[in-house]
């Protein structure tokens, strides 16, 4: 028995003696093959895992380093090291628009996220816990929206928002974000509300609580874990959104304030700085834009992973 490592202890203690000869013969042959194969595979696979890890870390580390380099250091070689560690580039990036873009993104999300969660949870709750005519229809009506590509509605959406006078306004983008986030929020929270026990709901009804009160004071607190997952999903999705703000948040005239969000602003800055030759600003800008997301991810790592992968459970 050349390779006992592959076999769990308990099984190893109990099995070998009792095995029929035929089975034992076949197995020891299989083991020897499995051993060399296992070792080669192990070195190979571990090497590959490490290689991929390097491929993730290297670009991000290079980006961080770039925010401390000077423009000529960046241009000289990919491997140059910053000679002077200071935060100048971050200050310049902030002044050149990143600060405003950051604020714009925050203003939009401060309204769009609570609104998405509130409206999504309300619709999901009613659809999950109440029977009425058209219940199924409204459920599929919401869920269907998640299957269509954004590009299908983009052109009319632009003219609709234009007609409402909401191009390049916060309220316009907020409403569109909420509408685009509803399908997944409703889908996810619908499933979640279904799993909650009915007994507490009934007890609240007997105590004379109104429907609205039951929702806000009984059901929402119980649904917190679900709300957290879908909330993280929406925060990341809306923070990282690019195509919608790029279409809807363009300055309408020279006097119109630049209300670009962070992603869109960075792309604009990248185009400008390409000519002006201040690359550290781009690198610092990217670092600023990535930092909050990475911090959120690392602190809620489990919820982020489960929230984002839950999006595929269809």
């Amino acid at each position: 028995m050349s390779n006992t490592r592959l076999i769990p202890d308990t099984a190893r203690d109990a099995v070998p003696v009792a095995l029929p000869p035929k089975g034992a013969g076949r197995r020891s042959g299989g083991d020897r093959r499995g051993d060399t194969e296992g070792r080669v595979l192990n070195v190979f696979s571990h090497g590959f895992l490490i290689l991929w890890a390097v491929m993730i870390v290297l670009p991000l580390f290079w980006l961080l380093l770039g925010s401390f380099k000077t423009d000529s250091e960046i241009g000289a070689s990919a491997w140059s090291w910053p000679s002077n560690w200071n935060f100048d580039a971050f200050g310049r990036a902030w002044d050149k628009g990143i600060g405003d873009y950051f604020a714009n993104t925050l203003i939009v999300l401060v309204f769009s996220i609570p609104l998405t969660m509130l409206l999504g949870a309300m619709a999901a709750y009613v659809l999950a816990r109440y029977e009425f005519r058209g219940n199924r229809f409204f459920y599929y009506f919401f869920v269907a929206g998640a299957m269509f590509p954004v590009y299908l509605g983009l052109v009319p959406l632009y003219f609709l928002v234009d007609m409402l006078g909401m191009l390049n306004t916060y309220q316009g983008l907020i409403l569109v974000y909420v509408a685009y986030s509803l399908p997944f929020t409703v889908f996810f929270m619908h499933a979640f509300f279904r799993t909650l026990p009915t007994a507490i709901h009934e007890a609240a009804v007997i105590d004379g609580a109104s429907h609205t009160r039951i929702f806000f004071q009984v059901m929402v607190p119980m649904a917190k874990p679900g709300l957290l997952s879908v909330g993280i999903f929406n925060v990341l999705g809306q923070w990282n959104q690019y195509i919608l703000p790029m279409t809807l948040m363009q300055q309408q005239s020279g006097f119109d304030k630049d209300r670009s969000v962070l992603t869109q602003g960075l792309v604009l800055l990248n185009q400008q700085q390409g000519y002006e030759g201040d690359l550290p600003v781009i690198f610092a800008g990217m670092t600023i834009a990535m930092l909050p997301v990475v911090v959120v991810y690392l602190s809620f790592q489990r919820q982020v992973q489960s929230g984002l992968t839950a999006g595929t459970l269809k």
Partner: protein
Amino acid sequence: MQQGKYRFVTGFLIVPVALYAVFMIWPYLQTFGYSFTDWQGQSQEMGFVGFDNYTALFSDSVFLKALWHNILLLIFLPVATILLALFFAYMVNVGGRGGSGGVRGVAGSGFYKILFFVPHVLSIAILAVLWRAIYRGDVAGLINGVFIKLGLSDPAHPIEWLNEPDLVLWCVAFVLLWWGVGFYLVLFSAAMQSIPREIYEAALLDGSSRTQTFFKVTLPLLWDTVQTAWVYLAILAMDCFALISVMTPGNSYGGGPDHNSEVMATYLMRNFLAFGKSGYACAMGVVILGLTLVLSLVTLRISRRERIEY
């Protein structure tokens, strides 16, 4: 309680439904209507042109090129991402040399799972800016830096990745692979962990090698999840707008050099925002939808297997 029920249901549904119908469903429906017109956008004047936009699309060489690129991505992106993610997921969950525990992942699996997922939480638009810098055509680009360090390319003639007609699309595809593998690793990991360990242990006891175990035990039990991943990656391959518009050369919204990285999404946006051909752009939106739907249905049908209960 009953009499207030309908009032309550209506009260809770009316705002979400209205918002969703106005900003999402209505534009979707309008797209179909506009795709049959020669609408230019700014004015409300438009003439009904029947299927003219669609026939024009399929004789538009740039659109056909874009369509072909989407199809290429559609084939290679899901295959590469799923294979790599499955391999990593297997290593991280059952690839380890079983000690006393029997079946477990390689050392440091938790770390790999956290790290590989990082790109997925970052915005594609920002990653596009980053990768544009990484693919820089001179010695200052990170990829060229690595290639020169490894002696794979000549420092005097660094490769201009994003200006090479034959390379540019694959450079973009690689970023999507880099972005997606961690996500599907986590997705497949979750599915693998729900497979009972006894099944693996039984396979090992019967002398199954790890490769055999993977193909005969793990993969069949994961089939549902692989299918879902396929549909998602296909939808992703139909998009690519942010990456291509930011990374590749070209007048408005990239697609260059000489339309060699053009995809339907960039061509749609250019027709809509730069050329003002709104009706034409709507027709493209409908084609994108059609392809996505056909693809999802075909995937689900072809790959349908008997579901294995465990």
